[in-house]
């Protein structure tokens, strides 16, 4: 069977499996949020300072907040089917637009953090595997466990202290120099400078996971018979590691990378508040504080979708990496 057929089958299977999960998530989120005290009208009234019973009722009617629960749910599902995530009374704009504005920032942050985490993790893990049981392995084990134990928001603040306050090398927040019109390489460098600390804070925890995972996977694969076959062919250790060991070891590692998208999104919520990074996580936080449940519902749904997409991507990646998958 060709690689393409395999990937196609995997894709279909994954897509079919996702439907009930998505529906379950939507309904669960909706009912969860109905439990909340107060609604968007209360918040707006509170912010306006004075609000009569009449204006409140008018607000509620305008946003359909006075309908029975099931009608509200039905409306929401109906809108969803038309790719509309509803309207945010607080921001005065469609939720989809609002999320669309913030999503790229978060995706960029997560992608950079995940790349850093996997790259560093692979290097550290390979080192640990090569020196397995000896001093470098033991030291790196403890170091990775330390990374694993540090709260992201705290290391974020500590990095700010060191690199922004003390050394003055990197900016302490935001996503670009305000008012600057840098283009080309200078513009890119500006972006990178603002990216380094948040991405590093988000990545550190996952560096630890990938390092340990790589170590275990490499040790497992190294003991396989086909690695001995590769050595008997006369291949050099470097070629064996890259061509034969790493590719097999990548299979469990990609599994984890897919699983981490949801977790990273949660991490981004905190890191984005530390660095005033204009992303989805910060929006979620603002929505919670403002009781803007339409936005919140949209974010929860979207981030869940993101996780589903990530899992599907990993499945496809597996179908490509591992010829044994997709046959069943």
């Amino acid at each position, binding site marked *: 069977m060709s690689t393409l057929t395999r990937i196609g089958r995997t894709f279909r299977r994954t897509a079919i499996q996702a439907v009930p999960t998505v529906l379950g998530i939507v309904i669960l989120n909706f009912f969860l949020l109905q439990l909340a005290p107060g609604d968007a009208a209360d918040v707006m009234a509170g912010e306006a300072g004075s609000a009569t019973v009449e204006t409140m009722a008018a607000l509620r009617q305008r946003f359909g907040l006075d309908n029975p629960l099931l009608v509200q749910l039905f409306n929401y599902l109906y809108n969803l089917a038309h790719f509309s995530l509803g309207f945010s009374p607080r921001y005065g704009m469609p939720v989809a637009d609002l999320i669309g504005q913030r999503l790229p920032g978060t995706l960029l942050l997560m992608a950079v953090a995940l790349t850093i985490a996997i790259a560093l993790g692979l290097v550290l893990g390979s080192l640990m595997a090569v020196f397995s049981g000896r001093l470098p392995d033991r030291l790196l084990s403890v170091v990775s466990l330390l990374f694993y134990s540090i709260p992201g928001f705290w290391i974020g603040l500590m990095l700010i202290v060191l690199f922004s306050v003390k050394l003055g090398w990197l900016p302490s927040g935001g996503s670009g120099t305000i008012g600057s019109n840098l283009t080309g390489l200078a513009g890119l460098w500006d972006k990178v400078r603002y990216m380094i600390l948040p991405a590093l804070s988000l990545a550190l925890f996952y560096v630890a996971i990938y390092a340990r995972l790589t170590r275990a996977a490499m040790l497992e694969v190294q003991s396989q018979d*086909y690695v001995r*076959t590769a050595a*008997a062919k006369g291949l050099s250790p470097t070629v064996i590691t890259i061509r*034969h060991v790493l590719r097999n070891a990548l299979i469990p590692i990609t599994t984890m990378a897919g699983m981490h998208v949801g977790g990273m999104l949660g991490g981004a919520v905190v890191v984005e508040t530390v660095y005033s990074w204009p992303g989805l996580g910060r929006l979620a936080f603002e929505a919670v504080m403002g009781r803007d449940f339409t936005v919140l519902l949209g974010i929860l749904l979207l981030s869940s979708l993101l996780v589903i997409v990530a899992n599907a991507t990993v499945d496809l990646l597996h179908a490509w990496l591992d*010829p044994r998958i997709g046959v069943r």
Partner: protein
Amino acid sequence: MATPLLRVDNLTVRFPTTEPVSRLSFEVGEGETLAIVGESGSGKSLTALALMQLLPRSAKIPNGRIEFAGRDLLGLDQKAMRNLRGREIAMIFQEPMTSLNPVLTIGRQITEVLTLHEGIRGKAARARAMELLSLVRIPDPQRRIDDYPHQLSGGMRQRVMIAIAVACRPRLLFADEPTTALDVTIQAQVLDLLDTLRRELSMAVVLITHDLGVVAQWADKVVVMYAGRKVEQALPGALFRTPLHPYTRGLLAASPRLKTNLHYRDARLTEIPGSIVSAAGERGCPFRPRCAVARDSCAHFVPDLVEVSEDRLVACPYSFIPEVAHGVALGL
């Protein structure tokens, strides 16, 4: 006699607590098949790995000499040794199910060795790989070349392993229990293939096995190993006619099908009392605890190999005393 292709002299393999191969010596001539026979744990597989220099990191070779085509292998550096592996010395392993990389096509795994040693790439390498697949009698090579290992049966995979091994026309091939994991009907086919290739490519084969039937049919010369030592060496005919060492006799007695002159068969050596583990840590002859004819003196020294006739060595001073031989023949 001309210089042998491979000469192993006094080879010892040592782990921190054990010595699975002790002072082993043998020679393999050009185009010859040498069988190394012994039960599991006798050190025969480690011997092959030592000769390939693929021993685990904890293993050391404190003394001995391995000479291949006039070169001292133990004196070669890593790079020179890698250059020999796969090109002049190749090896196939016991487990065809796990010896191929599951995520690469078999074509890729064959061309890899061609590219490495002969610089053949792309279409040429693919064509050569296909030739090799037909050489090892894999039907429909055009289609099979893009298969992954899990799509092939065990016998087919072992053929692929053989194709990889002979890709660069090596002068010496180690076959470590090449048929143990295969069905009985497939075993003969694979061994026949090996033997045909040996003649066609004029390579020497070191066949490592616990199966005396295999020895009878395919070997030119036999080395019997016990607990890391060579206990007997003979031509196959002589070995089966007059086994000298008590262990060899036990082996033959444990292979009933040979006696009745049936075709070879997987003969596991369970009918000798005790196991090879019980020999560890003993002084004196390692086979003594299981030996039917052991005497008190066997506990005090390790018997030397003695040349009893041309091409015939045995490491038991009592083995050619007639009444002992008689006793063993009676099943004592």
